[in-house]
């Protein structure tokens, strides 16, 4: 089920420059959400009609709470960052399919690049098996590192070399000589493309969370498609909807 829910902000704080963390009270959505799903978050400013898709970072089902971690990318996320405890936000969710949790892998990579790191937190908590979490940051502001360390061994890459391996997530994997059966990843498209190639080369399974501009967020408008290998369930033209058929896809199923 998807819900339209008015959520109350329980906590909001800046984790790193321009990166905010928000805990929201949203019982119905929290009751059903799974790792890798996302929410449509709405601006209160009426000039901004479209929802902002934001991945679920953590789920506290007992408390009916969800955590979102987001980067100020424009006016919508700037607006969200200005709210505080007690303020409310309109949400629709949980949306999309989430990562597969039942493949039975022994040893996996969870790979997050930049603002693709947040969904790895809940995934690490729920995915069975041995988790090697590789997180690529811009600099030494290693947001969510502690949360990641709760459920796996964490390897860091930074663009400026200020922490962990200088370079990208694949540099960190190589430098640390890491191996795994499968990849679960979220991050910028160039990173996902590189991971898809790496997985193919190493015969690994690979699940990627994609992004595209969205309007409806629920599969109705056909705005957010990606090219897919198989025919899609809507139009049968190999155009899968990221909001509905994704955002997580098996790498070999989509063009990147």
């Amino acid at each position: 089920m998807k819900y339209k829910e008015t959520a109350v902000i329980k906590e909001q704080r800046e984790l790193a420059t321009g990166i905010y963390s928000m805990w929201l009270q949203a019982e119905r959505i929290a009751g059903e959400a799974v790792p890798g799903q996302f929410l449509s978050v709405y601006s209160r400013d009426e000039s901004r009609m479209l929802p902002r898709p934001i991945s679920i970072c953590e789920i506290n089902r007992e408390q009916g709470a969800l955590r979102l971690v987001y980067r100020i990318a424009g006016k919508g996320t700037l607006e969200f960052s200005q709210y505080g405890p007690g303020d409310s936000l309109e949400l629709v969710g949980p949306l999309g399919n989430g990562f597969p949790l039942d493949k039975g892998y022994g040893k996996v990579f969870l790979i997050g690049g930049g603002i693709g790191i947040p969904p790895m937190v809940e995934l690490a908590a729920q995915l069975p098996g041995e988790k090697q979490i590789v997180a690529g940051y811009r600099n030494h502001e290693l947001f969510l590192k502690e949360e990641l360390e709760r459920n796996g061994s964490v390897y860091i890459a930074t663009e400026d070399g200020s922490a962990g391996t200088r370079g990208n997530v694949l540099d960190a994997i190589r430098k640390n000589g890491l191996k795994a059966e499968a990849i679960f990843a979220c991050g910028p498209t160039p990173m996902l493309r590189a991971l898809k190639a790496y997985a193919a080369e190493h015969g690994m399974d690979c699940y990627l969370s994609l992004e595209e501009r969205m309007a409806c967020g629920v599969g109705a408008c056909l705005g957010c498609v990606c090219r897919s290998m198989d025919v899609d369930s809507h139009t049968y033209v190999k155009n899968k909807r990221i909001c509905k058929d994704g955002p997580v896809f098996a790498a070999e199923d989509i063009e990147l």
Partner: protein
Amino acid sequence: MVNKHMKYGTCVNLAGVELKNPVMTASGTFGSGAEYSEFYDLSALGAVVTKGVANVPWPGNPTPRIAETASGMLNAIGLQNPGIDVFIERDIPFLRQFDTRIVVNVCGRTISDYCEVVERLSDQPVDLLEINVSCPNVKEGGIAFGQKPEALEEVTRQVKKHAKQPVIMKLSPNVTSIGEMARAAEAGGADVLSLINTLTGMKIDIHKRAFALANRTGGLSGPAIKPVAVRMVYEAAQAVSLPIIGMGGIQNGEDALEFILAGATAVSVGTANFANPCSAKEVAEGIRAYMEQYQVEKIQDLIGAVGSVY
């Protein structure tokens, strides 16, 4: 308490098809209803209008297909659709589960494309056909038919020959005179007019120095265009005697009432679905609330009832 009058007062009639209330969904913003049926019972609506369907599947345009603008959005979906076969097999049976009218939006590249789809639908349980001759996002067909009165009249006439259900011609706002276009559709035999489709627009990403949409241009929709839409509905209502379905930026009952007062018999809710998945239902509720507030016995008393008080 809702009295008996109120209960029946929201019915409207479009070319012989009775709608329980004047609220419809705008083509392309509501799929074939499945996605939004997760949020409310579609029986709350006067009609569901489907995404445009062609004779064969269309893959649509490359992404990005969507861009946000001030109080609106641009889309360049490019009429991605599964074609009439899948549509008949899957979408019509789905919609028949609900107590609402079914309007199929038809797109095509040539007049014979339109006629083929219309014929395929002739034995289907579909209440109305809406012919989209105004999509700005496809090269051939689409808007080309919607910008020349002679072409519009001709496509209307041909479609009417093949159609078993009443035909709604959906007009483009990207024209010098909407009145002239409305008259052309009427002359071609249209049963109903719907307007407006989107205004052609463009957004540029100044940091990438690139078009925000892969298609370069897209269709502008949402509250931003409402004043243009209300004006065009008013002008069309002055120009012809056909019933009109008004749309463009409707978000709530008040917006819908502007269109009805301007001369629309029914209204469609489009982009607002994206801002709130329950919009269309709430528009219907808002109209009812207004009728109760002002003790309007039947919605017909409001259609075209705008006047001057200055």
